[in-house]
């Protein structure tokens, strides 16, 4: 079965510190990978995505993620967080060449940035 795992339900961090939010996937087929962010009372906004090519992907708001096929991971990083980065972050996978159109989501990681 295909699945996406986000091991950390909550990550507290101080402002201007670096952060890494972990995402691992399990799939018998190739995947596209996405990170979405959900600010309070808002919808899911795309941060970045990996389709192919360079394994280091840069997104909006200074976030980046690295696709690691051998470790089946797609961890999200930011070198220096701001208070405004406080939100829920979701990793998601799209199964390639299956005819399916759905995204498979992880359970989300709540990033709490404090002064």
């Amino acid at each position, binding site marked *: 079965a295909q699945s996406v795992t986000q091991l950390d339900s909550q990550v507290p961090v101080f402002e201007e510190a670096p952060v890494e939010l972990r995402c691992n996937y399990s799939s018998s087929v190739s995947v596209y990978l996405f990170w979405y962010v959900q600010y309070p009372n808002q*919808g899911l906004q*795309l941060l970045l995505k990996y389709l192919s090519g360079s394994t280091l992907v840069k997104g909006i708001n200074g976030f980046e993620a690295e696709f690691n096929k051998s470790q089946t991971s797609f961890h999200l990083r930011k070198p220096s967080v701001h208070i405004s980065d406080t939100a829920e972050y979701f990793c998601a996978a799209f199964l390639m060449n299956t005819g399916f159109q*759905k995204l498979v*989501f992880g359970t989300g990681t709540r990033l709490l940035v404090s002064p």
Partner: protein
Amino acid sequence: EPEVTQTPSHQVTQMGQEVILRCVPISNHLYFYWYRQILGQKVEFLVSFYNNEISEKSEIFDDQFSVERPDGSNFTLKIRSTKLEDSAMYFCASSLSGGGDTQYFGPGTRLTVL
């Protein structure tokens, strides 16, 4: 920037009642989706819709659920007879094409079934 909109933002209903959740996808998009998120759980796929028909649905999407694109702009999710366990945040999404193209999500409708 174009965005997906959803109405209402919050819907409260009694068990057994019918509800219709409405979405306006991005205007030139061709693929439409519904997802839901039960409080504290992951976002789950419900259904995808293309060319005026369902292209994929999950096991959650049983006979109580239906989708429709009644005109050129709206995309609706109907739950015929709501159950307590239908309480969740329902997200609509759209994409220009399939095959992993970015899905753009609306802000969600929080459905509370009493």
